[in-house]
């Protein structure tokens, strides 16, 4: 540091801004977009910012972390040891986060929230939280950064509306502890069962596994009797809708069980 800077620093009583933000999502949630927009918006004023992604190879699912640092001083390295804010968007990220939780870390838990567009509402909630912590991050610069990020793509209105909604959303109470995470105990799968008698008098047990169904819809396309339609009686692996059987049309042919890439359907016929 130059001598003059050292003098200015010791004489200055301006609070230095310094925030380490970790956005923890999974592939497809838009966590990286939030990180990039936040870093760009923060740097539009007098603050400095950096953004560094960290993710695996899975195109969907997996873990996607965005490291954002906002500082009034020069930033030495884009990652950090301890996060000041963790934005938790998926259960799958929890095992990766333990090392970044410190005494003063604030955790914004968004698991299970059904906002649309998800990442823009989260952008609003995060901006609100940062502003409440006293940092000079203006909502206008975030809106400009959102516009820049979209570029020629459509949907600016929808995205800005989501951002505004997030800004005014009750700030999720800051938690101090990561929620518990346990992988499924060996052998116990969650199931949804439909039992019925088909038109041909067969007794059919139609079982769905929400912990496996990713909502691809191949079964709906492949059913020769058009007996499957999108249901709303539960959520699958990515919070997706799952198909549901129409007992009046199903004849127990098991083509859906054969077709499912995730083995999420089991049909028992007596």
């Amino acid at each position, binding site marked *: 540091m130059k001598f003059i800077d050292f003098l200015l620093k010791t004489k200055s009583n301006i609070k230095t801004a310094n925030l380490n933000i970790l956005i923890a999502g999974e592939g497809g949630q838009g966590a990286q977009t939030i990180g990039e927009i936040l870093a760009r918006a923060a740097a539009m004023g007098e603050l400095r910012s950096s953004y560094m992604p960290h993710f695996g190879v*899975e195109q969907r699912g997996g873990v996607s972390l965005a490291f954002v640092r906002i500082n009034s001083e020069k930033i030495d390295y884009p990652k950090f040891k301890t996060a000041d804010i963790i934005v938790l968007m998926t259960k799958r990220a929890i095992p990766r986060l333990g090392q970044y939780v410190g005494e003063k870390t604030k955790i914004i838990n968004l698991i299970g929230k059904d906002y649309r567009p998800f990442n823009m509402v989260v952008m609003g909630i995060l901006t609100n939280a940062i502003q409440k912590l006293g940092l000079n991050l203006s909502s206008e610069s975030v809106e400009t950064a959102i516009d820049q990020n979209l570029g020629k793509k459509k949907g600016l209105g929808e995205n800005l509306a989501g951002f505004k909604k997030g800004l005014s959303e009750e700030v999720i109470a800051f938690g101090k502890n990561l929620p518990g995470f346990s992988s499924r105990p060996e052998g*116990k799968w969650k199931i949804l069962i439909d039992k019925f008698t088909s038109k041909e008098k067969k007794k059919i047990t139609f079982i769905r596994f929400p912990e496996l169904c*990713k909502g691809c819809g191949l079964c709906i*396309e*492949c059913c020769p009797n058009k007996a499957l339609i999108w249901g709303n009686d539960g959520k699958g692996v990515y919070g997706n809708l799952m198909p549901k059987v129409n007992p009046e049309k199903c004849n127990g042919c098991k083509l859906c069980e054969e077709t499912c890439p995730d*083995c999420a359907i*089991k049909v028992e016929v007596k």
Partner: protein
Amino acid sequence: MMTNPPFPKSYLPKTKPHLFCPGCGHPLVLKTLGKLIDAGKFQKKAVIGFDIGCSLLAWDFFQVKSFQTHHGRTVPTMVGYKLAKPESLSIAYQGDGGGYAIGLQSLIHSAFRNDPITVIVVNNSLYAMTGGQMAPTTLCGQITDSTPEGRSCPIERPFMGPEMLRCVGDKKAYIARTSVDNHIEMEKYLRRAIENQLDNNSFSFLEVLSICPLNWRTNAKESLARLEEMKSVFRCGEL
């Protein structure tokens, strides 16, 4: 009441749900392979090498010796394994990038030498894991991440792997092409491919036409329609 999903016995349940995208064709091929491993009781005998690309997401899919190899080098690795353990069922599992681009040289020579291994190439006509760029098998006019205006059309046809291997390969080699929407044919051809290795100590190759709803940006119906389009260019059958 404990109900289990209809996994083949050779599946490793604790790695499910697997890491493939919704509607991916890979798990359909892997399910067929799993059923054949069950039926032939090959769980101890089989060894599977996975290439880099989306196929690598299957490295902990089965309760069968599996490992990952360098990109495009799955075939020579499995040849080496077979040389060391001739009684094994040695399977190389690649995408169309690993098989026909970076790994093409090894593939051609393996067929030429009639190495007693089984190669499965899952063809979705693009490089999926890196974001959907053009591959050798991208159709003429197809829009991909690196051909935003459609693949240039002076080319007469995209890359025809099985046809090429039939010309180059030993006549004892089993060469075929099938697709993920025909599970009966897929099971039949894959079984014959495995038998060609175990019973005839010869090379076997199966290209499987597959779907990629993510990079194609298609829903289930559109993905299957696109697959039909692929089948009119890449003919299924035994060569």
